[in-house]
């Protein structure tokens, strides 16, 4: 069963197509990272998913509910951490969580939930004095109420320090092990890499790539680069190396060669080939493409 099944989703604001013909499927039990730069349409997609906004066209099925027509019934089974949220200044953290417990009509313990998100020292403090990170943690506690089948977290790491982000990932893993499907968005690749089974990258309202992290790495250009330093100028070598099947591109810079490798390329074979051409190798090293490079390759221009 698919936890989320979005088909041909379109959302227009006037002339602007915030989401344009989006298809997206999240399998039951999966942790799905929804990536894209700000303004790519992630939040609009989530707004349509949760009933905050009405799609212009398309269908959204979530946990077998029609997310547009049956939004209220659906939200009984979903834990939501919205973007750009704010809390009730005059109510305590406990009152907030208790409110979610009352509305969902479940038996959770507000203290246990607040301890879980690291707010044990602020249980009876009013949310008006909370930092962004603390509000984010409180919203997460509210999202966890009632052991939801699906967690929808929109930019959950904003306002969290690295330690908070790590704790968040831990909670996401725990919830997933309990059986929850997790759908979370971010504009930072590293946030999703550590926990996600699958990643979708949005750009200008459409999905430009969808795979696991390793697959994205491969698809975005093999992932690794071999950098070789020669004892003589490297210009004459580029054509030969570029002709190889296991090389995607070559750049020469004085005596140094940057060779982008295909997924299954064997470095020793390439080094052997260079030596066969009569060049002496002084040094070589490999460089993994950073996740940010992969992300950029999809979301900036050329992809």
């Amino acid at each position: 069963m698919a936890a989320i099944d979005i088909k041909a989703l379109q959302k227009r604001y006037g002339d602007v197509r915030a989401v344009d013909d989006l298809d997206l499927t999240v399998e039951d039990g999966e942790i799905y990272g929804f990536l894209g730069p700000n303004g790519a349409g992630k939040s609009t997609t989530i707004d349509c998913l949760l009933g905050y906004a009405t799609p212009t066209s398309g269908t959204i099925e979530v946990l077998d509910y029609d997310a547009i027509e049956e939004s209220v019934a659906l939200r009984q089974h979903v834990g939501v951490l919205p973007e750009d949220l704010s809390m009730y200044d005059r109510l305590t953290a406990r009152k907030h969580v208790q409110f979610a417990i009352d509305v969902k009509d479940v038996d959770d313990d507000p203290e246990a939930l607040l301890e879980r998100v690291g707010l044990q020292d602020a249980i009876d403090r009013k949310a008006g004095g909370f930092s962004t990170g603390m509000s984010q943690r409180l919203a997460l506690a509210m999202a966890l109420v009632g052991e939801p089948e699906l967690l929808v977290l929109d930019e959950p790491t904003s306002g969290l320090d690295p330690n908070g982000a790590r704790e968040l990932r831990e909670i996401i893993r725990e919830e997933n092990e309990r059986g929850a499907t997790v759908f979370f968005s971010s504009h930072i690749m590293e946030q999703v890499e550590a926990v996600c089974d699958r990643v979708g990258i949005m750009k200008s309202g459409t999905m430009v790539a969808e795979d696991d992290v390793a697959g994205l790495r491969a698809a975005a250009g093999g992932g690794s680069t071999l950098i070789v330093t020669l004892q003589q100028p490297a210009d004459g070598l580029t054509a030969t190396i570029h002709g190889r099947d296991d090389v995607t591109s070559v750049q020469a810079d004085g005596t140094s060669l940057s060779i982008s490798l295909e997924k299954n390329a064997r470095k020793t074979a390439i080094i052997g080939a260079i030596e066969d051409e009569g060049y002496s190798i002084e040094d070589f090293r490999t460089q993994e493409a950073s996740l940010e490079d992969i992300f950029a390759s999809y979301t900036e221009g050329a992809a």
Partner: protein
Amino acid sequence: MSGQPGWLHVAKKDLQDSARSKLLLGVIGVLLVLSVVLSAVPYLVGDTGSDGAEFAAALFQTPIGIFLPVLAAMIGYMAIVQERESGSIRVLLGLPLRRSDVVVGKVIGRSIVIVGALLVTGLIGTVLMFALYGSVEWQQMAAFGILGGVLSVVYVAVAIAVSASVSSRGKAMGLIVAILLVLVYAYQYLVLGLVRIVEGSWTLENVPDYALLLLSLDPNVAGSRAAGYLFSADIGDPLEGVAGESAQLPFYAEQWTAFPVIVLWIVVPLAIGYYRFGKADL
């Protein structure tokens, strides 16, 4: 979701939240000063005994008509739009609540707030009257309580309807101020102006039926007539005299019609507000 209805949760939470607000303290302060001053004025100018009590009670009608709509509007106009601007509405509607739960819950929560403040301060004034004059015009005070309660709930409903209809606090403020100006301060003059234009003369007696109908739709008029109907108190039917002596008066000259008018003032604005809020992208 088998427990209590969603609007009840929203109303409770809204009550808890606004009960701690400085706005509410301000509203209670204004009502308290009003109630104490009006109760004490006859005593201060030398009227005592039952004359004083009668005088004091008579003083209440006009200030209720002027202050309560404004206070109710202040309590209501930010109720929803502020949550929309801050983003707390996204937390609220991330839970299994309908948008109608939010509108209804807010109307009930804030109505309780202002009616509660009205009751407490009105009682203080009444007790003060009893202390100063030895008697109280009970019926009259109860009638003013009804008028105040009607105006509170009507204007809370109108203000929350405005709050649900627009996307920014500025728009809500502009709209509610315009509504207050027209309904509270200009309405009767507008109707009389219309009569002047149509009939060619100013008149406060034997006004034509259409003017009678328009005047009977004024929330303040409806509140006064409802109170008069319930307590046969000397609150005065504002339409009495205006309508003339004709035996053929239209049905809306009868006092009971005040009740459907009040219901319409609560339901129609809220229906419009809910319609606009219901299809808004948050």
